[in-house]
């Protein structure tokens, strides 16, 4: 299980801020793809990701038991 935390407007896209994804070992980019394909969670391109509260690149590996947070950057001010 990988725990996925959804921040800001991402939460509203599927109505909850936390989902569990059944996967063992994949990259952040693959997780994004999986969330789009299987959970209808689109628009994660350009969204920052953190794995276990540490900034992650698209090719960062995610393993069973990890927590991945998706954080959309904002530009207002």
């Amino acid at each position, binding site marked *: 299980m990988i725990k996925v935390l959804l921040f800001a407007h991402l939460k509203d896209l599927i109505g909850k801020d936390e989902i569990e994804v059944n996967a063992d070992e994949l990259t952040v980019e693959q997780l994004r793809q999986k969330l789009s394909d299987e959970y209808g969670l689109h628009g994660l391109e*350009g969204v920052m990701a953190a794995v276990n509260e*540490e900034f992650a690149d698209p090719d960062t590996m995610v393993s069973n038991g990890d927590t991945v947070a998706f954080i959309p950057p904002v530009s207002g001010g």
Partner: protein
Amino acid sequence: MHERYSRQTLFSPIGEAGQAKIRHKHVLLIGAGALGSANAEYLTRAGVGRLTIVDRDYVEESNLQRQQLYTEDDVQAKWPKAEAAKKHLQRINSDVDIRAVVMDGTAVSLEPLIADVDLIMDATDNFETRMVINDLSQKHQIPWIYGACVGSVGMSLTIVPGITPCLNCLLRTIPIQGMTCDTGGIISPAVTMTVAHQSAEALKILVEDWDAVRPSFVTFDMWRNQYQSMKISRAKKKDCLSCGEQRTFPFLTLENATKTAVLCGRDTVQVRPPQPLKLNLQKLSDDLANSGYTVKANPFLASIEQNGQRMVIFQDGRALVHGTKDEAHAKTLYQRILG
């Protein structure tokens, strides 16, 4: 030390020594909207030595809901935000040297301002300008503090050249604006929360308490009750074009192609002349009034209206054309006025 700062010097990580440092520092604040006006107020109250405020806009009614310092009188007078902020800040703390610069912050216009700057505060509303700030920060080795907010969401990151990753390490490309543009509105607690983080980091940097600087990117949503920080120490990229081994500062050297820009979340286009002008606003206003335009001017800008079409022209020849998102149309209207 002044009685004024007594509660701040009692705070031991600042103390008398820290207060003396704050009094001798120069902060460059880019933007005087929601984040800018609030950061300006707290830096001024804290007693920073000099504060330079750059902003391209003027005060409008829709700003009052979340942009502190500004009053209904500023809306009436269409005062430029940088100048309006300066006026209010001087009443708060006459010991601070406040400098207002009414202009569009670009690679070309900002670089001359940063000679003796100790800290750059980000209060802009777009990633293009932030990437310029990020490159200027790396080129001149000046820390800067990213802050942004929209809706009930905000985020912040402190960037210290040579120590932390830079914004270009984290984003790699400029994110798609549409997603986060302020079409979703904004509430003041998101502003306030972002400013709390930015101004805390500013104080740490001004007193040179580098160990206290937050080593993480922080984000929060005040309506959905979320708060998350993520460590960024491993995000520094050796091949980053802004802070890496072969740095080229791409956002300083990029062809500044467009002279027009649609302002995010607003029905407004900004048009800039090829070179900054030094308009005689009084003469321009008189001429336009004689030609049948409704004109309202102050020492910094002229607001011009005809057939429901409104445009504000600043002294440097820059204009905000309201009521349109069509850049070509805006340019036509601009050229009708300024040739």
